[in-house]
């Protein structure tokens, strides 16, 4: 009995840990997204964005360098990009590439693996390839609007409308109001995910995950599952991955580093604020397959 109570408390401590860890990065994302909505006009943004399919996806892949957000901060920014009229496929690409393809994370990954810089290179390369591929596939969606969550669809129509009528004028008053509004919306997406992630950890102990195996194939499955369950921030996950280095295959470490920032329990919940369940499920499956493929390639052909 006491044991169970302790375990539940531990689960709640983990939950709070995830929240406190995510808070600064959520705030950074909220800050950038509010700046975006309050200061940058829609035409300006769309003018910068390449028109062609491949061009816009490529641009979206490297948008993380402009908005260095992690996997919690990317959601508010992506929502704002949708509202500003960007194509959903490009936003999807941004969503998956930005958490790993940004200067901060690249720096941290190189710092974490000083003797194996190739890990960081593979991470960037695979993130780019996977995010681009997923965006490319979704860019052929016949009705891109249908990819978006219902609420966002309305907001997108409304935002375009309002902006054309009133124009934009930057005011500090509305800035803080908008930022706090955005912050609470993000909390609504973050908290159920964090709660679910923390209790999955307790119900699905890491023993089971590591029990899967350490071979060239099974280690990849184990590390992907671990990344999915742990839901740690992409800004620091390189240090965590480091502690599994030498125990698991290098391919599985790269899989952990590419899959984790794109998808985990917490972020799946947050994506629901942008895309429909169908789109999320399909892109998760795609990313899973592509991560398996790339890391198997590493394990069998490179290392």
């Amino acid at each position, binding site marked *: 009995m006491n*044991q*169970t109570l*302790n*375990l539940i*408390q*531990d689960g*709640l*401590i*983990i*939950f*709070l*840990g*995830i*929240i*406190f*860890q995510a*808070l*600064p*990065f959520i*705030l950074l994302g909220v*800050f950038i997204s509010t700046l975006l909505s309050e200061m940058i006009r829609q035409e300006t943004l769309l003018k910068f964005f390449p028109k062609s399919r491949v061009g816009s996806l490529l641009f979206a892949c490297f948008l993380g360098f402009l908005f260095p957000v992690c996997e919690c901060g990317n959601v508010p920014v992506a929502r704002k990009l949708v509202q500003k009229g960007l194509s959903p496929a490009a936003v999807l690409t941004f969503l998956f590439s930005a958490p790993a393809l940004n200067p901060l994370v690249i720096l941290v990954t190189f710092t974490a693996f*000083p*003797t194996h810089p190739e890990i960081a290179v593979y991470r960037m390369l695979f993130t780019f390839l996977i995010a681009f591929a997923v965006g490319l596939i979704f860019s052929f969606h016949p009705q891109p609007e249908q990819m978006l969550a219902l609420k966002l669809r309305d907001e997108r129509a409304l935002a375009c409308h309002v902006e054309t009528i009133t124009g934009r004028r930057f005011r*500090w*008053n509305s800035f*803080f*109001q908008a*930022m*706090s*509004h955005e*912050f*609470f*919306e*993000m*909390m*609504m*997406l973050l*908290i*159920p995910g964090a709660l679910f*992630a*923390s209790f999955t*950890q*307790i119900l699905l*102990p*890491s*023993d089971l995950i*590591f029990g899967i195996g350490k071979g060239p194939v099974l280690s990849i499955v184990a590390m992907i599952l671990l990344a999915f369950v*742990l*839901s*740690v*921030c992409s800004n*620091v*996950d390189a*240090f*965590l991955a*480091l*502690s599994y*280095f*030498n*125990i698991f295959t290098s391919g599985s470490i790269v899989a952990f580093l590419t899959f984790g920032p794109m998808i985990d329990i917490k972020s799946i919940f947050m994506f629901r604020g942008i895309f429909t369940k169908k789109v999320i499920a399909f892109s998760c499956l795609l990313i899973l397959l592509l991560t398996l493929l790339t890391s198997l390639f590493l394990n069998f052909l490179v290392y």
Partner: protein
Amino acid sequence: MKRFLLNFGSGLRRILPLLPPILCLIYASFLAFLLFSGKIYLFIQANTVFYSWISMIVLFIIGFFQIIVLVRGWFRRTTSTASEKANFRLPSGFWFAAMPILLMFFLPLRPLSTSLASVKSATINDLGLSREVRAAPSFVINTENRGFLDWVQLFDQNPEPEQYNGLKAKLVGFVLPETDPSTSTFLLTRFVISCCVADARPVSIPVRYDPQKFSFKANEWVEVKGAFQVDEANGERKPILMLQSFQEISPPENPYLN
């Protein structure tokens, strides 16, 4: 009466927009409490605490400026703000966001417990150390100065237990009882975290004690002194700390290792 109710209603509506900034301020104050009391170390890794300072400041600013804007609006009573006020709705995530704060009131602020360690225990010491970064501090002359992780790492790198025979150690950790109590052994355990408690992994060092002289409860934090010996169990040889003395302590400010 009707008029009173109407007034009351509009008064409430006037207060409603204050709730989100107040919650921002409560969040900021809570972070301030955790940061100043050092309790933040119970949740996140010491190197990332810096970010929490930033979020505390940002939340203070957001809450504070919103309140100023609102109060200024009340005094001006312009028509636009009045209509805005009438249409005000709490942001959809408001009650969700209040949840962690409410939780903090009910949850004891303590380090992760043995319950979690035993859930994760089968992998104990199997992983958790960034071997490439740390150099094993075998040059330390007084072995009592070696830290918890130093020992775990040494055992990991040079598993031959003979070379640790007789070396003295002084270690801090919590008690994780062995499943078989007749061995009069417990695992002195710490959690290693690299980001926040979500990635906590237990590491432990076995300690053998004289059951006539000492007794231990699960979960209690202790500082133990003793010397290592070679332990042979199930055909496996490994170092074990023979307990000479121990002291009950309160958990250290930063209970996790990294």
